[in-house]
């Protein structure tokens, strides 16, 4: 299964757009890219998932270049409540390849 690499931490200010990039050089053809958010003392929560190009939902956008070896989670106009750890995962479509491997994630600290 593809391993992912993300920055350990990032700082931002309220109202800014934040982009967190994840590297997954060994991604397989059928793998999907998924991002989760985790607040202290809670389990992770799904944010967004994509296969290629761009995906957008009410929370974030996910940009995936053509070679799929990286992806970027974009959070528009962050607020203090977006302070959390963000995880990037890649996993396959069925059976044993559905195994979800989290890394250490990126700690995003949003300041006033």
């Amino acid at each position, binding site marked *: 299964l593809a391993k992912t690499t993300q920055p350990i931490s990032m700082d931002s200010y309220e109202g800014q757009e934040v982009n967190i990039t994840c590297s997954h050089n060994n991604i397989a053809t059928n793998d999907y890219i998924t991002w989760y958010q985790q607040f202290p003392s809670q*389990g992770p929560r799904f944010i967004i998932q994509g296969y290629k190009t761009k995906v957008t939902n009410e929370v974030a956008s996910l940009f995936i270049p053509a070679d799929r070896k990286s992806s970027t989670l974009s959070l528009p106009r962050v607020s203090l409540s977006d302070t959390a750890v963000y995880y990037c995962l890649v996993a396959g479509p069925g059976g044993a390849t559905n195994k979800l491997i989290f890394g250490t994630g990126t700690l995003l600290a949003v300041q006033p």
Partner: protein
Amino acid sequence: DVKVTQSSRYLVKRTGEKVFLECVQDMDHENMFWYRQDPGLGLRLIYFSYDVKMKEKGDIPEGYSVSREKKERFSLILESASTNQTSMYLCASSYRVSGTNTEAFFGQGTRLTVV
């Protein structure tokens, strides 16, 4: 709403005890997962099950075993608890759909302390 319920929020056990952590989901999910989370190490997968009686080792299976006799229940077993197994344990579940991956839902976690 999907509900993933872990049997205990806090647990204190003695070294050498056999410990059972139970997880139940109510959404008929095929996949279930057990993770442990330690400061600075993120979430590490212990075991994964993609069907009843089916299991796959994760990154850190040593010292643990699992049981999946029914679809809705996934148990994590510490055969002989040790102090280095003091941690936060998180259970999750998800659908297995051919052709796509789907989001996983997490329980509230069990903070286990082994003394």
